[in-house]
């Protein structure tokens, strides 16, 4: 809490988010999806909806990759010893 109060936005990094750094990938996916869909969706198309769907798809893909890698590291690799 004291780290948050001492934080100067845009000058100092958000070190208080260090333990939860993986949550910061969500806004990153949102930003990438917004720019990508701005190019792909016709101007009369539903840009925000398309961006939301792409963000959800990418997020689900990341979670699935995490689960697969966790299964390999904690399940398969220890059983090889």
């Amino acid at each position: 809490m004291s780290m948050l109060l001492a934080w100067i936005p845009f000058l100092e990094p958000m070190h208080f988010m260090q333990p939860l750094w993986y949550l910061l990938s969500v806004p990153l996916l949102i930003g990438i999806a917004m720019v990508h869909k701005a190019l792909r969706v016709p101007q009369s198309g539903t840009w925000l909806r398309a961006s939301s769907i792409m963000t959800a798809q990418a997020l689900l893909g990341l979670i699935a990759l995490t689960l697969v890698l966790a299964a390999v590291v904690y399940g398969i690799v220890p059983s090889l010893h």
Partner: protein
Amino acid sequence: MTRTDHSSRSTSPAAHPGLAVIIGWVLPGAGHMLLGQRRRGIRIMIGMAVLIVLGVLIGGVDAVDSVRDRLWYFAQLGAGPIVILIDVLNQKVARAMPAPEVYQTMGLGHINAIGTLYIALAGLMNIVVLLDLFRTRGEEGPARRRGDKSQGLYT
């Protein structure tokens, strides 16, 4: 029901893709607006602003560092002169602070990496946006975005 966007129909007679690329680098999204795609340009601006503002918010001014993260800086440069401005602020203001304060402005670990990544991806995405200007002529319709299905929801 199909909505029509009248702003997309007109192409500025003075608009040239080369000029639009320069304008689009200086202000991401402005190149498309110059070629008559106002709505697309605004959407690109919003997306790029999300990436750049959040990158600096997360990583501080140290998210852009032309000295210690030179290769990342090259990728970040695609986002325009704002990156140069942030780097100047980092080198001239943050790094010039006295010893106890300067350490607080330095990014460490995951936070520095993610802040840097946000702005690097903004730069790389803007290069894609700039390349798109060469196939943009202001017209809209199925031929303009042929790969889209169902208004581009699943592409």
